[in-house]
């Protein structure tokens, strides 16, 4: 049980792929212009992550060590293609707004890093759970960043106007410069919270 709990606290907080490991920043900076974009990106990456983790874990004793990275990429790109076709078929609007970023999930370093550092060493169940938790951590971070950017940069949340009409949106927040500011502040905030929790638990440990 403690293993499962650790998988989830790692994915969401202690080893959060974006906020702590700073993996997949390109996707984060590019797609977080609105909450719906961030959410769509987070969920599609999560789906790829779960499937690729499960399959790489299944194949972990079969794949020779010398060619493992290439093999992982083949597995990952297979799932990304599947997800891309599914989105094109059933969610054409998301396909439109995400554009090139869905196929680019292949090169999202979070997925390869989980394959290499977790799925290739752990059982199928744990790998699946790791996919869920890392995906959730990724989605959580994307939603936080995109919520800040959307509220300040367009005055809306999920497309609904939430700030009064007299508020004039700061356009820079939906441009790429705003993505960098926001991500930096969110990472700083996360560090502060994590170090505060660590201090507290150390005190209690004494």
């Amino acid at each position, binding site marked *: 049980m403690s293993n499962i709990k650790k998988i989830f606290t790692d994915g969401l907080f202690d080893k959060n792929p974006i906020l702590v490991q700073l993996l997949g920043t390109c996707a984060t900076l590019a797609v977080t212009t609105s909450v719906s974009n961030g959410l769509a990106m987070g969920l599609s990456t999560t789906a790829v992550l779960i499937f690729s983790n499960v399959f790489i874990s299944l194949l972990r004793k079969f794949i020779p060590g010398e060619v493992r990275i290439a093999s992982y990429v083949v597995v990952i790109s297979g799932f990304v293609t599947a997800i891309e076709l599914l989105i094109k078929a059933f969610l054409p609007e998301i396909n439109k707004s995400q554009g090139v970023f869905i196929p680019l999930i292949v090169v999202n370093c979070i997925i390869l890093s989980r394959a290499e550092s977790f799925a290739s060493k752990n059982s199928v169940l744990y790998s699946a759970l790791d996919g869920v938790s890392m995906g959730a951590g990724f989605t959580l971070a994307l939603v936080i960043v995109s919520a800040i950017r959307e509220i300040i940069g367009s005055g809306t949340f999920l497309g609904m106007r939430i700030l009064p009409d007299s508020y004039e949106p700061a356009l820079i927040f939906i441009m790429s410069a705003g993505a960098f*500011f926001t991500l930096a502040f969110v990472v700083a905030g996360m560090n502060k919270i994590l170090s505060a929790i660590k201090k507290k638990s150390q005190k209690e440990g004494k």
Partner: protein
Amino acid sequence: MGLLKVSASPHIRHEDTTRVLMSDVIIAMIALVIWGAYVFGLRVITVTAVSVISCVAFEFLFNLIIKKPSPVGDLSAVVSGMLLAFNLPATIPLWIPVVGAAFAMIVVKGLFGGIGKNFMNPVLAARVFLFASWPSHMTNYSEPLMRLPLFGEGIDAVSSATSLTLLKSGQLPDLSVKDMLIGNMAGCIGEISSILILAGGLYLIVRRVITWHIPVSFIGTVAIFSLIFAPSEINALTYMTAELLSGGLMLGAIFMATDYVTSPVTPKGRLIYGVGCGLLTMFIRNFGGYPEGVSFAILIMNLFVWYLDRGTKPVKFGGGKKNAKA
């Protein structure tokens, strides 16, 4: 043992404190506020006051929160506030200087360690931030001599094209050289009067607050570049004068690019820095998407200051290549 002081480099021996230097800069800028108020109306005073007060307030509050000694006494926040106001049109809604001051003092200056440690000019960074966020407010220039009252909104003012927008489209501005020189034209509060800015710059050079290297190389590069690349149907000299006197070139070259923290220390480094600023300004003005490039040029060159200082380190007495191997 009061004689022996241990301090970090560069070891410049001078009686000046930051406060003295900053008061000189303020003196050099006061004429610009008065001229701005004469051309655009008393609203200029309100904008400048709001900008200065919020810069000082944000610097004070930020240092209070992070429990550092308050640096407000060195007057650098006052200078930042005045320069920020100089970069805004007189019609600006009054909340914009407040947001700009917060960005300059907290994000650009405070978070990187306060005065002396910021890697970019806080005022210019704030200007670019405001420009990217609220472009319509930042380019709403009022007609010269259509004076705006001390208080009240300036939004209804007739917006006027600046000379640079005209130059960009290949036309000469409909202004005499005299008007451009004394500053009887549309633009930001502090950038219009080239002659007053030059006088302020001269004062600062005489008082040895700044050296001539950056302004001369910056303005000189722009002059040479515009002579060479003047459009064939316009007289090259007229074109050059228009490029030099319109926009934020003078203000940028004399008051912004010479900021101590974000400009090189060595004379050679300063010359390279000025030439770089000039070239980038002209590249952006002529080939870029924006009509004005001074602020971007200075910000980009700010990032090279560390390399310029390292690359142009003066040779120590008795050092040099000849003796290096011995």
